[in-house]
């Protein structure tokens, strides 16, 4: 099985993130079973699979928003599934972006982007503001710094959410279906931004239904089904020439 081979070859020691044997269930419903995965710095790993296949849960387990039932997640060489680990500190070193943006409606755009800098990273207010403005400029929204999230389009809101996650220089970006809630004509602006980030060497773990995007940017594509990674490899392998029957069935459904 390609599954075992790749998890062995990933044992190079340079990896940023490693999942081994991760299991997660909600009540009787097992969402993830024996998931193994490694990400090297600068890589972009894309999870694909049907709704309910466990993609979002996997991201949330990595971000410690969910507690795994079994297995080990190692981030920057440290076992973050150890209950003695400070979860807040771990999360502050990752950036997470959600499908529904989850911006804070009571803060303006710059307030959203600088909140964690000020509260978590101890950056002084003026410095935080200038870093926030620079980051907004980076995502093309510097003129919206004083706007409220509700006054922005979906694409703009998601770019603010990416800026908010990125501003504290996280080692790893987790992107959970970041274009699924967007109108079709707004998807492009967000995907273009992610492609640029990949070019700048940002390490990303994301799940998406945008197969064209996955083919362009992914270093590794993993097909999840029923809580297991059934097939993994380069985008040309997994999306272009899938070996597993389930992968083929999923891809044909998504293209239909």
């Amino acid at each position, binding site marked *: 099985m390609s599954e075992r081979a790749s998890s062995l070859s990933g044992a190079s020691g340079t990896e940023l993130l490693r999942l081994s044997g991760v299991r997660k269930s909600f009540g009787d419903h097992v969402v993830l079973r024996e998931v193994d995965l490694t990400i090297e710095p600068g890589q972009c790993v894309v999870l694909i699979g049907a709704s309910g296949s466990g993609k979002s849960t996997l991201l949330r387990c990595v*971000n410690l*928003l969910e507690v795994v039932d079994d297995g080990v997640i190692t981030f920057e060489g440290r076992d973050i599934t150890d209950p003695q680990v400070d979860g*807040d*500190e771990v*999360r*502050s*070193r*990752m950036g*997470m972006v*959600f499908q*529904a943006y*989850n*911006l*804070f*409606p*009571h803060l303006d755009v710059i307030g959203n982007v600088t*909140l*964690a800098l000020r*509260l*978590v*990273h101890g950056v002084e207010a003026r410095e935080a503001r200038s870093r926030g403005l620079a980051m907004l400029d980076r995502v093309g929204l510097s003129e919206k710094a004083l706007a409220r999230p509700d006054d922005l389009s979906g694409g703009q809101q998601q770019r603010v959410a990416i800026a*908010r*996650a990125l501003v*504290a220089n996280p080692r790893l970006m987790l992107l959970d279906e970041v274009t699924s809630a967007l109108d079709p004509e707004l998807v492009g602006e967000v995907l273009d931004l992610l492609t640029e980030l990949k070019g700048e060497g940002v390490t990303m773990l994301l799940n998406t239904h945008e197969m064209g995007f996955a083919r362009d940017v992914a270093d590794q594509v993993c097909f999840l089904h029923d809580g297991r990674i059934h097939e993994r490899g380069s985008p040309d392998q997994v999306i272009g020439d899938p070996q597993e029957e389930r992968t083929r069935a999923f891809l044909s459904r998504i293209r239909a």
Partner: protein
Amino acid sequence: MSEQLTGQVAEDWRPSEVQRERDEWRRRRTLRSAVIAAGSTLLLLGGLGGAVVSSPGWQRVQETYFDWDKAVSSFPAVLEGLWLNIRVMIVCWILILVLSLTVAIVRTLRGPVAFPLRLLGTAYVDVFRGLPLLLVIFLLGFGGPALGLSGMPRSPLFWGGLALVLSYSAYVAEVFRAGIESVHPSQRLAGRSLGLSYGQTLRHVVLPQAWRRVIPPLMNDLVSLQKDSGLIAVLGVSDAIRKAQIETALDFNYTPYVVAGVLFCCLTIPMARLTDRYARKKGYHGAGGLL
């Protein structure tokens, strides 16, 4: 409305025949509804007023409750008492906000560690929401000083105020809790994913949003506290109602009570209007609107 639009948007637009007919019909309907509503209101109020005034005992009621000279002579004393009500209300309201927010936060804590605290919070809310306010005032107002606790004041004002704070905080805590729980969990997730601690997320993400949502019900409770502050008169505290009672006892003319009632309304009605205005500004339209 249509005139404004034609001026700004399309210079050459004139309402069509159909639209003019519709506008005309709506105007007639609005006028007719207004006339009917005003007429029926006048009729009802006139009928009720007439029934009261023409009742056999009206003459005596008017003399004992609506005596103008008595109203004028008792006004200064009652007003002086009202100043105490206002001070009690302000001090109690601040304490109520602090205590109720604390109880609400305790009741939303999760995990087994917080279980005793949650239990305590729930028991407090259950008990003090169940007890009639007057009963709490009697129990604390007479029982409190009798305890003879060292360092605790024995004044009925203190114990009456405490009764108000304890009773109201139980209600207001539930308002805060509803506000906290109305903030979508995804907001907490977003805060935590940025590395904010539980407390920081509560303080900077959840509470600011919850606070905005509960301001109208909070102001409603403040209006209610304004008048209920008069209940501590039963402890002999010389507030507006107690002063009215003293004035009444001189000649068994009850007009001072009406004076006190009018003064309380002068406090609460502006507050109620302010609440409405604030709620409307924040987009709480309630029933009504187009549909």
